[in-house]
């Protein structure tokens, strides 16, 4: 497992064999079970999976914001080569806001309802750089301009409930990038928005990436969003990495793992022939009764008996393409 991800000193973020357990009261179950991936500086990686696949927990573990009944039981999270889990959260606190920031899913609840948005945007700057009132205000205007909020001089005094969903999300993003972090974690930031607004926000992320040179770790269940925004993709299922590709297009064009294939097949397309949407049979296993072996084997069309036994090795099958499958959908010429 760990051997599959080579330690890379030049990387921005390295998650190595991360394990997260959820306390269900009577016992602890593994929600994230040995997840590894690497993010280069300036890279945008999509972290794709269904609800309960552990993608959000992974993100929160990086940020150190796990709920009280959830804890990291193993693995490392290296940010610029230093382990965020090593010193009891001190480094994590240092890095928050300045090194890593996080954009949340629901801008309606992720903003303080009784604080003017201008103050919320500059809050981090006041905290980290000790800006005065006037400078903070000027910076807030500049940031609102950067994220494309029209008429920032007036909107700076608005309260969150006076803004539309799209504008609120822009405010969130402005607050997130205020201290020019190297890594932006996105927890489905466009899920609560209209598709047209979603498109604008995705363009904004692409723009900010160019502008700030920040790495992007984008958690979503929406493959179309990943396709639009990201360079690389990691597909999670039941807390394990199913497939990973450094070039997202090659993964989407020719998925190796049957789960990735099924996921792509279940995505509606606006072009191409009109066919029935391919739903994946069965449902994702609940946290407490995940199957042994490959977690996808009981829904997989290619599964054999050996799929139910032991840990499926995560192997590099092609250049920059890794997958945890015993029967991958390999093109001719590639042998497992």
């Amino acid at each position, binding site marked *: 497992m760990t051997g599959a991800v080579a330690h890379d000193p030049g990387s921005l973020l390295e998650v190595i064999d991360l394990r997260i357990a959820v306390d269900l009261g009577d016992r602890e179950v593994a929600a994230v079970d040995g997840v590894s991936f690497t993010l280069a500086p300036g890279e945008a990686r999509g972290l794709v999976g269904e609800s309960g696949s552990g993608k959000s927990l992974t993100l929160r573990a990086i940020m150190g914001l796990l709920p009280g009944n959830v804890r990291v039981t193993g693995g490392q999270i290296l940010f610029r080569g230093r382990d965020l889990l090593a010193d009891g959260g001190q480094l994590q606190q240092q890095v928050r806001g300045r090194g890593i920031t996080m954009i949340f899913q629901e801008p*309606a*609840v*992720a903003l303080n309802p009784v604080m003017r948005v201008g103050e919320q945007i500059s809050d981090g700057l006041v905290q980290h750089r000790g800006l005065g009132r006037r400078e903070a205000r000027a910076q807030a205007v500049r940031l609102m301009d950067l994220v494309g909020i029209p008429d920032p001089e007036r909107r700076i005094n608005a309260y969150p409930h006076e803004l539309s969903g799209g504008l609120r999300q822009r405010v969130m993003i402005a607050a997130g990038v205020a*201290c020019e972090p190297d890594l932006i974690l996105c927890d489905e930031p466009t899920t609560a928005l209209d598709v047209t607004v979603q498109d604008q926000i995705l363009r904004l992320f692409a723009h900010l990436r160019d502008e700030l040179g920040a790495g992007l770790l984008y958690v979503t269940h929406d493959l179309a969003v990943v396709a639009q925004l990201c360079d690389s993709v990691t597909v999670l299922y039941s807390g394990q990495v199913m497939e990973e590709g450094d070039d997202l297009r090659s993964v989407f064009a020719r998925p190796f793992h049957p789960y990735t294939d099924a996921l792509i097949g279940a995505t509606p397309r606006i072009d191409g022939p009109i066919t029935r949407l391919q739903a994946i049979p069965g449902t994702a296993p609940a946290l407490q009764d995940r199957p042994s072996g490959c977690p996808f084997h009981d829904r997989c069309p290619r599964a054999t008996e050996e799929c139910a036994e032991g840990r499926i090795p995560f192997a590099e099958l092609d250049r920059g393409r890794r997958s945890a499958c015993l029967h991958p959908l390999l093109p001719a010429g590639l042998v497992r």
Partner: protein
Amino acid sequence: MTEPDRLEPATAIGPAASSTIAEVRVAPLRFWGPRFLRSGGLGLWVGGGIMAIMVLAAVFAPLLTSYDPVQPDPTAALQSFSAAHPLGTDNLGRDIWARLVFGARSDLSIATIAVLVPFVLGVVLGTITGYVGGWLDAVVMRIADIVAAFPFYVLVIALVFVLGSGRSSIFIAISVVSWVAYARIVRAEALVLRDREFVQACRAGGIGGARIVFRHLVPNVITQAIVYAMSDIVMNIGVIVTLSYFGLGIVPPTPDWGRMMADGQQFLAGGYYRLTLVPAAAVVLSSLGLSLLGDGLAHRLRISR
């Protein structure tokens, strides 16, 4: 407060929303005035009016009467209503109206000031314990439990008895006892807010604990404390009047409603009801005014969130 649809005050009270649903339009009870007054409804108006009149009467007491509230005049004892003495005089010949308005000065001011210390103490402690949790929360809340375990009046009277009567003892006694209510209310709110996403977002942005508590949480929880403070003033008036009635509160000859009631009590049998009834009515009226004000304020603050 948690439902996002409450965030839009216009849809909750606006007439436009109801008119689109059906032809029947129920006009809400409306009053002329600035928006912040209108939305509070009748209670806010009446309560605010009563309190405004009482506070003004207390502030301008020397202008409202030509009599000294303290100086006895044996020649004018126990007079009935008259043009010279609109509410009559007491057993020592002092004008009851004069004593009433000067009494409002001491009672209302002490009641209000005695809210400030527990308010600040309770809000700060409640927010911090609610947010931080852990041993600090356990310790502070157990102390609160101990204070709350005693009946309110028993504890206040015991404290004043130990400290001696007078203004400062009343302040201390009330502060020691009534911060508990603020702390509990605010802590409950802070506990809910702690897991809200905007607090998570603050933490993700590296905002420090003190900044989260004072800049983000306190403005969110303080409305509950403000609403409670209105009824707390009512309670304080009751405490001060009660203490004075028992001779533990404001030291005579400073006029005060509780002392007036206690002094007038012995003349009830003689048919001089007004000696006791007038200050009692003042207590009831001020309590009513503050309750209505608090109610209206609660309504208004809830809508605006």
